[in-house]
């Protein structure tokens, strides 16, 4: 494992992807590609949260459930309680975090496979609650006509209108991903990252040096679910339509596949790379939808055999190859 205290020069590494990301809408304003990238980034937020839970040693197979809680609470807040989207989004994140706290306080007493099974069931329970509550949550009809974010006036940029184009959404999710990345990166490289790793490596030893297992496990879980809720809120108002069929266990498993393919050693780059890669590949596989799980399964096996560090491991490996060619 890479020592988390090692200082990475994150700023210089970030510059190129950041410039590309900022300028992307100028390169291509094709709504089809924009949609693909935006959905990739929504998944990247979910995947980063999933890796945070993995840091403290647990597998969550229910992240889509928390994504749904964020999405539905945000949609209801705006549609039924006429909140502004800009307030509803953080509130939806907090509501998701409260759910995560209540659920985590009980379920994180168990660990390993049992926790994974519980979260799997949890995701399904949340989906079933949605389908069986047509009055409030729309049931199988879903919730339609969710308003897009209200236009917002920003200094220097003027009024930004979300109804005419997808580009503002692109920059909004970019902002969300930037905030998520900074918070999770700093968390991972602080004493909290160390605590999570301690718990993952040996919970009994962690406790013997004074680490309150439950407190920190719940903490990681709540933070991860908060960001899942934020991503859900974004999705609700981007898509304008919520349907329980979107929040299936397969989607939760997909998050795990994305993390594995991208690489779980890094908190930020791996999840983003994995989520983008699989979303783009998934888009090209549209015509062969039934083949998707098989191909993803194959991809995971290949990655685990030949590139156990995930896609992000390609860069240091290529650098080594270049070095050996030069020398």
């Amino acid at each position, binding site marked *: 494992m890479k020592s988390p205290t090692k200082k990475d020069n994150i700023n210089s590494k970030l510059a190129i992807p950041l410039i590309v990301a900022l300028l992307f809408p100028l390169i291509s304003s094709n709504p089809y590609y924009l949609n693909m990238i935006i959905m990739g980034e929504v998944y990247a937020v979910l995947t980063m949260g999933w890796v945070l839970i993995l840091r403290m040693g647990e597998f969550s197979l229910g992240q889509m459930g928390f994504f749904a809680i964020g999405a539905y609470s945000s949609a209801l807040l705006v549609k039924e309680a006429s909140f502004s989207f800009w307030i509803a989004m953080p509130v939806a994140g907090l509501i998701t975090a409260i759910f995560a706290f209540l659920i985590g306080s009980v379920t994180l007493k168990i660990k390993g496979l049992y926790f994974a099974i519980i979260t799997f069931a949890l995701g399904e329970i949340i989906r079933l609650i949605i389908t069986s509550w047509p009055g409030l949550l729309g049931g199988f009809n879903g919730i339609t006509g969710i308003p897009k974010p209200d236009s917002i006036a920003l200094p220097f940029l003027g009024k930004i209108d979300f109804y005419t184009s997808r580009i503002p959404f692109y920059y909004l999710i970019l902002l969300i991903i930037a905030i998520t990345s900074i918070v999770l990166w700093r968390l991972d490289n602080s004493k909290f990252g160390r605590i999570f790793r301690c718990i993952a490596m040996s919970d009994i030893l962690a*406790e013997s040096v004074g680490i309150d297992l439950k407190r920190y496990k719940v903490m990681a879980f709540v933070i991860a679910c908060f960001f899942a809720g934020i991503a859900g809120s974004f999705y609700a108002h981007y898509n304008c339509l919520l349907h329980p069929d979107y929040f299936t266990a397969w989607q939760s498993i997909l998050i795990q596949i994305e993390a594995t393919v991208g690489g779980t050693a890094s908190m930020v780059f791996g999840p983003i790379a994995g989520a983008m890669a699989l979303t783009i590949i998934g888009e090209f596989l549209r015509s062969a939808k039934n083949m998707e799980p098989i191909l993803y399964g194959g991809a995971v096996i290949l990655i685990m055999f030949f590139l156990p560090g995930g896609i992000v491991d390609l860069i240091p490996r290529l650098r080594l190859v270049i070095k050996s060619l030069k020398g």
Partner: protein
Amino acid sequence: MTILHIIGLSKNFGGLTALKELDLEIGSGEIVGIIGPNGAGKTTLLNIISGILRPSRGKILFKNERIDGLPSHQIAKRGIGRTFQHSVLFHGATTLWNVEAGFHIQRKVGFCATLLRSEDCKREEERIRTSAEEIMNFMGLKADKDMLAHNLPFGQQRILGLCLALATKPELLLLDEPAAGLNSEETIKIMSKIRAIRDQRITVILVEHDMKVVMGLCDRIFVLNYGERLAEGTPKEIQANEAVIQAYLGRAEAS
């Protein structure tokens, strides 16, 4: 001065009595050995003191405060450190990282200050690194500070376990078979380390099978048999005790 006082301690696992009405008193600054045949309840006793198991009955007083039934992270905070029978370490991380992890209780900077990377937070990390290196120096592990814990030789892993426990700044240290699986050279080394720890005014309780270690190190020895106290005394007294010899070797008539 008594640092640890155990009164009427019992532990049942279902129908099995692991400890029965045990009374122990441990003075500050002693090295106390706990010995006994397999299944005598030695590790159970350590696990109860360190909070991994809850006692069925009885009281444990640490510096005149009750600690029985507290979760183990709180017991660690009150000043009881421990090591484990097998090399339980943060195996995937470096030696230095392991020792720094032991300083958890000393990290006081809050959540927000940590995320904002405040000056306090940086100073704290620097201070902990210095203290961790001091401990590793003291225990003779400094040369291996960048090695991964699972690549260390077995003897060094044991010493790393001691370093981790020392990093919690304990007043009482519980050692579960510190010399198990070590060769004679490594055993001598770890014995001198344990003495050095005692000289830092840390009380040591150790469970051990290797009689050379127990007799060579301990000021006082408790002998457990079937969860009950069989004998108590200095190493010399224990070696001459009839009941102890019988428990270990069996009765002369029976053989």
